[in-house]
């Protein structure tokens, strides 16, 4: 897989997004008003942040199905902290959210690294555990807007240069990932581990440790998003972001990140998330029932993975593929 190979895939995806937006705009010009596009981006920001964390996990041949539960648990914890101590400044809350999220990511990572438990099993388990703990600590109660302090709720909505802080954080995370993936040893290690774990060992990379690092990053971002989510919607309860982990994985798959590991890019994850976000926001505009959304994102996943597979079918294994299809 060459650089140009997956660059062109992103170009195609970007083209598809522009086409989609163009088709919507031809009927409903208000959709491409800058303020509306900014709204769509802001609405998609949590998905973008989580998709980037998921990307590094998937690139190392793992998967993190616990992100949504991590988000919900962190959100509940910071919301409860806020009701108990309304004076706690936002930076402290942010630090707690990121710390708690990283801790949950670390648990996933250690189980994968130290005990070599298959990632899908680990995160399937921790997903239900984290979600259950929310119920244990909250007793199933909701924390509503009037119980949260104003500063707590205002943070993600604060506008700088016309964009809410939530959007700016997403942009910052994207930039941080561009640096992390393209300019650091850890970023290269993710791809080395995913591309060929055996070769990675011989180049002196600790495979398990690298995978664990990916989980910690994914967890930290889930924690961060947990606070932003709860503050933005001003409500915390057991089921927030239920099933969101699949949307995050879907964004990665649509963005051309190979579930087999080793292939993926920051741009791909960003575009995949934007695609889903635009579809979600466009449905009510073009008067299609929101009930269509699930089927559309499902079809998008299947089309994307089929497209990626046919465009990237590796040439080294042609003999095997032929043998498999000969009946």
């Amino acid at each position, binding site marked *: 897989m060459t650089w140009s190979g997956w660059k062109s895939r992103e170009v195609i995806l970007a083209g598809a997004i522009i086409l989609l937006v163009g088709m919507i705009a031809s009927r409903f010009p208000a959709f491409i008003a800058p303020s509306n596009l900014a709204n769509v981006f802001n609405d998609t920001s949590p998905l973008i942040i989580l998709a980037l964390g998921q990307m590094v996990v998937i690139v190392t041949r*793992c998967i993190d199905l616990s992100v949504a539960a991590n988000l919900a648990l962190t959100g509940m914890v910071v919301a409860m902290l806020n009701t108990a101590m309304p004076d706690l400044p936002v930076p402290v809350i942010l630090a707690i959210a990121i710390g708690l999220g990283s801790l949950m990511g670390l648990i996933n990572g250690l189980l994968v690294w130290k*005990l070599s438990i298959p990632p899908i099993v680990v995160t399937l388990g921790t997903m239900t555990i984290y979600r259950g703990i929310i119920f244990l600590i909250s007793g*199933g109660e909701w924390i509503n807007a009037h119980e949260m302090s104003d500063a707590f709720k205002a943070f993600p909505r604060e506008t700088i240069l016309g964009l809410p802080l939530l959007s700016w954080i997403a942009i910052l995370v994207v930039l941080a990932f561009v640096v992390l993936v393209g300019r650091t040893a850890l970023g290269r290690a993710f791809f080395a581990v995913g591309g060929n774990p055996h070769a990675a060992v011989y180049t002196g990379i600790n495979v398990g440790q690298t995978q664990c690092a990916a989980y910690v990053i994914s967890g930290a971002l889930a924690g961060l998003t947990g606070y932003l989510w709860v503050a933005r919607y001003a409500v915390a309860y057991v089921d927030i972001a239920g099933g969101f982990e699949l949307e995050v994985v879907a964004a990665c*798959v649509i963005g051309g990140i190979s579930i087999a590991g080793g292939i993926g890019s920051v741009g791909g994850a960003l575009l995949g998330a934007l695609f889903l976000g635009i579809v979600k926001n466009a449905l009510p505009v073009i008067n299609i029932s929101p*009930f269509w959304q699930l089927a559309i994102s499902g079809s998008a996943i299947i089309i994307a993975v089929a497209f990626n597979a046919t465009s990237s079918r590796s040439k080294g294994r042609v003999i095997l593929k032929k043998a498999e299809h000969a009946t």
Partner: protein
Amino acid sequence: MSVTANETGSIERQIPDRLKSPAQRFLASWELLLLGVAVAVFTLNSFASPYFLDAWNLSDATYNFTEKAMIAFAMALLIISGEIDLSVASIIALASTAMGFAVQMGADTSVLILVGVGVGLLCGAFNGVLVTGLGLPSIVVTIGTMSLFRGISYIVLGDKAYTGYPSSFAFFGQGYVWWAVSFEFVLFVLFAIFFAIVLHRTSFGRLVYAIGNNPVGALFSGIQVARVKFVLFLLTGAMSGVAAICLTSRLGATRPSIAFGWELEVVTMVVLGGVSILGGAGSIPGVVIAAFVMGMVTFGFGLLNVPGIVMSIFIGLLLIAVIALPRIARQVLARRRG
């Protein structure tokens, strides 16, 4: 399955010089350990609540796992062959929606059965074609079809529900064959025997193991890997259709959110039953015991008024613990010897 464990980790297949006797193997087996857990849960439950050891209560308890276990049997074969199907719960939703639609068209019970199983087969075939025909990773394909199948149910039903199933249809989920033995439980036992024979006593079962252990080796041995996997996807789809019939009949209504989240419980049941998520190992008796364990834990907690979400913590812990503990034990042993 493309999401594999740490490849440089300690998962190696060791082939012993001489096999131990069947009795010795059983004593060291996963199934026996699990059976111990099942007995412990059963005993604890009967102490915890005086209502537990009642034939009708126990019969009710079986509904906690019969439908999921039927899918789990087929899923076990699929996972042993190295694939996975995360769309099973969505197949239930789609099959149930199709049955509800058929009722509106005036279909009778026998047609409903055909519709249920037929939709299950179609969905399984769709997954199978994408995975074996196009060579796509099953975990991604079925995450996609999971959204697609349930999405179609949402498009058809929205926030409405289908009801008005014929009274003869109620038998499948609510009927009793004899005394407190429900029809579903009998079906569960029959399918357990069927899948145990297929996996453990037929050449097809040997193919499933061979493919899971070494797909490339299986291919070069002349096994039609793609065809076997396609059949397994069909089977899983059909069993999801059967589960849809039972569940719809039991609930008497179809909503698009029916059986939401079941795919995870089914996979948990299979993995708890000792089936390797990496493929190549596992047994149907293990899955049967795991089904009982999960059903009894859920029911026992229910009797103690423990909310469902707390049970799910327990199931999650159980899933990780049953896999982690033997590995920790092995690491400790290896360190002592080393």
